[in-house]
């Protein structure tokens, strides 16, 4: 056998063996080792090439070609085996990383706003967007702001119906009380305007806690009201209706029909109770609206001239409307909450449920 034939046979042999090993390789690490073993600087192919020096010069290009062909074949085989393995390995890895996607996610515990707060925020936001300024007032009030200035003198029958909480007064101290409505903020806001040398227009929304000495299934001694008023030249009953219509539709997130019924409040003239089309039966009549299709939601009217007079606003020049609404009542209607007491029991199961609805 000539030197060249022997080398060829050797290369042939090497290739056969290598291809078999490549095919058998179980992971990419083994393949990497095989690459080094066959194609590396100190690899087998290199050692075979060492024999080339012994060949006669005319044979050398022939064997060179042969060696290159073997090298290419091995390299290609290695690349192919590697590609195959990496697909297989990825599949294995994916299988190994398989999880139960239905397990709950990692979350921080979520807090919730009290439903009354939510109602409060929604309502003041609506009025605020409409252009009403936000005002606040004290909850411990005096008789002037809570009654007298609102045209409810001491002997007025309406005063008795307010179920007022009074404070222990000592000596000649003027009796203080817990405000029975948010209307005193109306007085304070108008007074502040006049005292600062200003004059209407005034458009104010005031929200807060109010108190009535009444505690049973449908009454809470503390609840929340939102008071809204506007004083300007030529403010009309039609404007009151416009604002009410807009607010009630915005709050209930649908076009609710409204109805104004003549009523009596000492601080407004004319006065009207405001009904909305029953939200439970869509105005058709049900148990909750006692078949009438209407539900009373708030009291309203044109500010009585005596109220304007009490704060020094000229009622022959200015007029205004005002209304006050019970936050709990509207929240109960909007969310179908059956019992007022739920708001102040603060059962976190109730609060969480009401919080998740928004």
């Amino acid at each position, binding site marked *: 056998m000539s030197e060249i034939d022997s080398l060829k046979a050797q290369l042939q042999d090497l290739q056969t063996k290598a291809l078999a090993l490549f095919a058998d390789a179980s992971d990419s690490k083994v393949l990497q080792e095989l690459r080094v073993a066959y194609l590396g600087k100190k690899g087998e192919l290199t050692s075979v090439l060492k024999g080339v020096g012994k060949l006669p010069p005319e044979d050398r290009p022939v064997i060179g070609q042969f060696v290159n062909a073997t090298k290419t074949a091995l390299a290609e085989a290695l690349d192919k085996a590697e590609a195959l393995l990496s697909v297989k390995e990825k599949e294995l890895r994916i299988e190994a990383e398989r999880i139960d996607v239905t397990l709950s996610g990692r979350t921080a515990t979520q807090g919730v706003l009290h439903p009354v707060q939510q109602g409060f925020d929604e309502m003041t936001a609506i009025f605020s967007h409409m252009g*009403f300024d936000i005002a606040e007032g004290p909850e411990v009030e005096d008789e002037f702001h809570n009654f007298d200035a609102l045209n409810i003198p001491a002997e007025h029958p309406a005063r008795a119906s307010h179920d007022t909480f009074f404070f222990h007064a000592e000596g000649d*101290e*003027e009796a203080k009380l817990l405000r029975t409505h948010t209307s005193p903020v109306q007085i304070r806001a108008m007074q502040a305007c006049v005292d600062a040398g200003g004059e209407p227009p005034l458009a104010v929304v005031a929200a807060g806690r109010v108190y009535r000495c009444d505690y049973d299934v449908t009454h809470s001694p503390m609840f929340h009201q939102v008071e809204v008023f506007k004083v300007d030249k030529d403010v009309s009953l039609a404007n009151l209706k416009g604002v009410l219509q807009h607010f009630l539709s915005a709050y209930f997130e649908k076009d609710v029909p409204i109805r104004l019924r003549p009523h009596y409040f000492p601080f407004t003239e004319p006065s009207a109770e405001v009904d909305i089309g029953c939200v439970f039966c869509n105005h058709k009549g049900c148990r909750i609206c006692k078949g009438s299709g209407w539900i009373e939601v708030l009291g309203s009217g044109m500010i009585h001239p005596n109220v304007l007079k009490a704060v020094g606003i000229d009622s022959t020049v200015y007029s205004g409307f005002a209304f006050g609404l019970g936050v709990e009542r509207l929240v109960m209607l909007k969310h179908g909450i059956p019992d007022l007491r739920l708001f102040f029991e603060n059962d976190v199961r109730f609060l969480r449920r009401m919080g998740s609805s928004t």
Partner: protein
Amino acid sequence: MKIPLSWLKEHTPLTKSVAEVADDLVRLGHEVEGIETPRAGVKGVRVGQIVEMVSHPDADKLKLLKIDLGDVEHLGIVCGASNMVEGDKVPVATVGTCLPNGLKIKKGKIRGEVSFGMCCSEAELGLAEDADGLLILPKDAPVGEEVGEYLELEEAVLDLDITPNRGDCMSMRGIARDLAADYALPLIEPGDEVVTTDDSVAAPTVAVTASEDCPLYTACRIEHVKVTDSPDWLQARLIAAGLRPINGVVDVINYTMLDLGQPMHAFDADTLDGEIEVRLAKAGEQFIALDGKEVALHVSDLVIADSKKVIALAGIMGSQATGVTERTSNIILESAAFKPAKISTTRRTQALVSDSSMRFERGVDPAMIAVAMDQVAQMVEGLFGGKVSVTTSVGDADSLIKDKQIQVSMKRIESRLGVAVPESADAVLERMGFAIERHDDRLNFSVPSHRHDVSIVEDISEEYARVIGFDNIPAVMPSLLTITPRKLYKAVDAAVAGGFIQVINYAFISVDEQRLFVADDGEDLVLFNPISEAMSVMRRSMFPSLLNTAKYNMNRQQTGVSLVEQGRVYAGHMREHTETNMLAWLMTGDVQQDSWFEKTRKADFFDIKGAVELWLSGRGLTARFMADDNVQGLQAGQTANIFVGKSVAGVIGKVDGDVAKQFDLSDDVFVASINLDVLHAGKKAKFQPLPEFPSIERDLVFLFDKSTTSDAILQSVRKACGQQLVDAQIFDWYDGKGVPEGKVSLGIRFVLQDVKRTLTQEDSDKAMQAVIDVMSQKFQAELRG
């Protein structure tokens, strides 16, 4: 007020159905609280005639009756009553009927005799509280007819809530007037038959010394009256309108009050001494009211008196001793005008309410004083006999009854209503009793004596609004834009984002709860008329109500709660008090539920502190927490004051174990509160260029005495490192194995950076050495490994 429809029809010929009338009343401003058909329960009770009556063979007190109901066969009924005779007509409840008292009539055997129904008394029909014997119906009652129909028992009664300004509508006549005006029907005037007076009866002598409060007082005397029960029809009317029959004379007075709106009073003339005086009460005078209540009179109370005693609190209630009873034979009738404010004040201070005071307070029509007097005198004479004197009258009736004149501008009314007023509205108002003259824009308005509530232009605008109908007023958005620019902080929102559940508690708590956290310094605001002891003082700390809420929830299957409340605390005196806006947190029990990725653990101080810090940082504020062992209700060693800037903004700590136990809370309870009113606005976020040069992170671990606070350590660290320190944090805290008793190993992580250049290893070494030196000098801290 209860309004039987049939009674209204005596004042105006209504033809509409009760439902229509109710709707129209609502439109006119009278709230309809309900429509009742109170005696619908007597259906099946018919007029029967007793055609045969024999005694029960086995029982003396029972009678066997044969009843003719107009049917082919007569009905056999066993009856225990004794006030009937053969031929009488009585109400007969047939088998299957259910009576108002719930009794269901069945065929039954009484002592061996079969009974096919029951003859009824007034009580059994729900017409009276009690009765002896059967209700004997008039001779002309048609046999077989439903008794309910015959007695008009099944009619509808409207329950109206009359607003306090409409005293004129607290009568059938008043309501009828509004309806008649609206429907363009005539209002039937009360009868004008004159009472025949008898000169032999002396008219009462009356002196009015308090003429300011009693502008008109009229009285007449009726002698030889035989007071019996009032007739059935009258009693039925009173019951339908919600009043109890008492005796004939009182019933007639009440009937007339409901009918015309004028409250009157009757005295037993034989119990009076001397002449009648209308005056203010004298100091120390006493009075026993009709209802038996002993009243100590105030000198401001208006009273009716004789020469010896007070006989009535004017317009509110008569005295017990001078009232009319079945034994009365001579009476004095009073019909008067009293000033509403006077009646209201006495009603309030004496806490005495009556149907009479309700009307006088709201204002009655002085035009009815004489009319009602005539009606009562006539009815008493007609029903119970007697001779009537002429009426004594003190005061100027004519000036009381005179119409008020008001000039108004129609433009002004239209601008207030936002709608043009049609001339047709005038006709409706005129039917209500107003007189209107139009001279272009100017209106001369004549207000009748029954409308006390109308005196200014705004009142007239309301009358027009009612007549036009609120439904016919358009909805017009006004121009609005008066917002003063300001930033609104919604304090509670950020706390909720931190995982807390917002609660809203009553602002009043018990005094005992107050004392748990606030010492008694006389600054409590105590309610005079609390709902209960548990709600008697305005809270000065947010913690008691939060603890109660925690208790409520921990008793309801919660293993832990994180609560937040925004509200006010209140303190001070009547002359000066403060209301402070607070935000308060409470944590107790498990901080989270066991989950597949994390096990539950109990809340501790640093949970709530983290919540407070997170909340503050959301507002751009940082706080320093300074330990304070003397905060009432909180545990020493786990309590701190929260400083924002130089002011104490709040407190944080662990609730004293004994206090927590009082609220049945067995886990540690942590609370914090922040005074929202002392917080300044916080720094506005300001742009800074991102750092150009890299930062270096270094860690040092020291052994400190346990008493050294991290706050003090970090402050010294900051000073030692100077400008280049971006951040320093405690990243490790360890007092376990290998750490000597009383010591703690603290790891501090430093982030160093320079705005002008890249820091070198030497720079950071220098900074670390400065820290090591300071820690050693200041805290004798020893560097570990």
